[in-house]
């Protein structure tokens, strides 16, 4: 197996991996968690939640807030967010804009919470 043959394999592998990336971005949709009647079977899975933000705070470079649908809320933690992302979320919080977050639905000290992965306004 010479260099040129290996290069063909490599280029083929690069194309395949880029296609996987593309298909994942286009077709993967996280299940929606309804805050009014949370589905326990979604625990430890990646879910998306829509709502407005409450109790916004930053501690040790981690962002903590609640995302609410009327009075039903769930805690959200965002580890090491960038300054831009903090500003965007702060903006949504200040103007009570509804946002959609995607993250891991998990339990922390027996309390449900979401570890934020990404968000969209």
């Amino acid at each position, binding site marked *: 197996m010479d260099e040129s043959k*290996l290069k063909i394999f490599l280029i083929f*592998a*690069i194309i395949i*991996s880029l296609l*996987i*990336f593309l298909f994942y971005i286009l077709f993967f949709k996280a299940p929606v968690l309804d805050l009014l009647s949370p589905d326990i079977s979604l625990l430890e899975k990646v879910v998306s939640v829509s709502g407005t933000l409450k109790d916004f705070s930053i501690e040790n*470079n981690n962002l903590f807030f609640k995302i609410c649908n009327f009075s039903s809320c769930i805690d959200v933690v965002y580890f*090491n967010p960038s300054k831009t992302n903090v500003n965007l979320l702060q903006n949504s919080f200040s103007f009570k804009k509804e946002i959609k977050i995607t993250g891991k639905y998990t339990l922390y000290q027996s309390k449900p919470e979401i570890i934020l992965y990404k968000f969209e306004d």
Partner: protein
Amino acid sequence: MIIEVILGILTGIVLGLIPSLHINFVSYLFISFSIFLIFPNHLFFFLSLSISQLITNYIPQTFFSVPNTENIMSLFPLHRLFLKQQAYDGIFLCFLGSFFGSLFSILLFPLLFLFFTFFIGFNFLISFAIIFTILSFIFSQKTLKEKLIIFLIIFSSGILGLFTLKYNYFVKEPLFICVMGLFTFPLLLKSIFEKNSKTIYQKTTLSILPSLKNSSLYSFFGSLASLFVILVPSFSSSLGAVVFSRFKEKISTYNYLIIFSSISISALIFSYFLAMFFNKPRLGYFAILLSEKLVLFKTDLVLYISAIILTVSLTILILLSLIKDIILFFNSQNLNRLNLIVLIVSFIFIIYLSDFKTLLVFFLSVLIGFLPLIFNKSRVYLMGYIMLPTLLFYL
């Protein structure tokens, strides 16, 4: 996410070309200077960085004989090919092993999942594997004197391992310091002070053409071996190398390199996988990542696989286009002078990480590292440094 992967590849290539720079030390620096915060998906950045750094590191390994904890064992055949002006062959074989090894390791994920689920808690198997390896090292020697020498090397490096890894109360970054002392410095010092050392001009064309069947078969063996050895904490690819070194005489140097590079890349990929599914990292720097709560989500497995394929392929493609220029550069340089620069740079890293007590441990490890060179034995036996503490942990 693709941008993070590409940036990780480029950073990994640059860092991988620096001899003696270990990924643990890189992650330590990254956290110190908060570089992780720049990248929102920094886990993918770090995944691609660590993979490309591992692959690129075969180049300085070949020219400077500088190993790290993941690839100590592949150093010896690489250096042998370097002495035969076949550095390019050695590096090319490592690229082949890394490419096919990464593909096979992905295919072996389901088996790894089953293995880890089944064997978790079977500590006696780990102890047995280590005892068997140590005894085979000693009793494979022909004379009593040779047996005693091997025992001395394993025992002295093992005691050093016990006091720096198991009962460590005073040494900072012991693994990095001791690996430098045991493996890197003795060989660099020896090559610098050897009077008959001269520039060995390396060929820029391939002398051997391994077949596709051969490359994929031995890469598969490497991934399979890695599947077993990843179950032993703290050993990663090194234990695979130790086990395979027992069969070294039976396989050629070329196939040996394919197996080792495959073991190294598979161990790294498996380590990330185990962190995702079991929260059990098997390589040091993952502990740092986990402590920062940057674990991958299980649903990201597809992205994780494509990031691996993209990283491995793109890294090798870039390196293949650079390798001939790198070899020509080394051919035009006085390697002794470069060795001296590497020695000084490595020592600066050590000073950065050390205090007075750590420096003492470093000098002690250099002395122990000279033992195999003095007695003309393989430096594989210095792996007692990791084997003995791991054995006592599981007994």
